[in-house]
């Protein structure tokens, strides 16, 4: 499963079971983020609520993208037995600044910044 654009790629890796994000994600609004949101929801459903998002190659994400991730997280927290991890990188400054807010939406969210 993959959603690919000019400057970004979001794909599911069967070996690691991670959803990997790479490039620059600055789409126009939530409507344009729907295919990515659908991919995340499909994977979460297939893996019985267990999902890992690997953002360590995602250089930029705009506020509409943050809104899309928060929408996904809010959907996840409603489900019983959901287990979510976000892998991030200190080398990409926005991740250290913005991702911690997502934990406030879902305190059980594991945020691993390396």
């Amino acid at each position: 499963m993959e959603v690919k654009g000019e400057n970004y790629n979001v794909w599911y890796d069967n070996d690691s079971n991670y959803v990997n994000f790479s490039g620059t994600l600055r789409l126009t609004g939530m409507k344009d983020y729907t295919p990515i949101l659908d991919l995340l929801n499909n994977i979460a459903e297939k893996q019985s609520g267990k999902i890992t998002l690997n953002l360590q190659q995602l250089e930029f994400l705009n506020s509409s993208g943050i809104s899309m991730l928060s929408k996904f997280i809010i959907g996840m927290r409603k489900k019983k037995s959901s287990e979510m991890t976000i892998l991030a990188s200190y080398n990409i400054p926005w991740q250290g600044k913005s991702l911690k807010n997502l934990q406030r939406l879902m305190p059980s969210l594991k945020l691993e910044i390396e």
Partner: protein
Amino acid sequence: MIKIFGNFLERLIHNNHAEKTDIYGSFKDSLTEKEHLTLEFSPSKISLNNRWGNNSLSANFIGDYLVTFFPHENDNHHILNRQKLIRSSVSYIANELLENAMKYCDETSNFPITLHAQVDGDNIRLFVDNSVLASAAEKFKNFIKEFMVANPEEFYISQLEKTAVDNNSKYSGLGFVTIVNDYSAKIGWRFQMLERESPLLTVTTMVEISV
């Protein structure tokens, strides 16, 4: 008929509510004697979607350009990290300001969108000008008033919750909220009448970060 009535309503809202200049937040004027750079985007017949990628291009350029004013005399880890942080912060903020300007400007007007960047010591200021219809300006001002008195962190979370439920319920202003909350930025706005009897205003958004 609908168009004429729409114009009439715009003028009515404009005449009732718009003062000559309205300032909100921590707005500062641009100081032309400081290092600065301005990009101006003319109105275009090319659709917003087709121009959208240019926002990122311009924002990255501004980030790269401003970094040159914070030279790395010592090529050590700390300075490189500071440069990376400046580039990334400026790029994020400039992109959000341009996205907002593109989304909410009056596309039928001939007013350009400008992005003005300025370096003042350890402060970087970004200014974006765009046109806005009087009715949209009123909604925007209501958002600003709510945002200015709120606790930024709580407001951020409440906006995320709201947009998750209904994307179209209300203007979320999430770009501005992230700029203030995640980048510890100061933000301000100036609304100005373009001319009397015109339903169009200009809004300048100013963001200042210390780097």
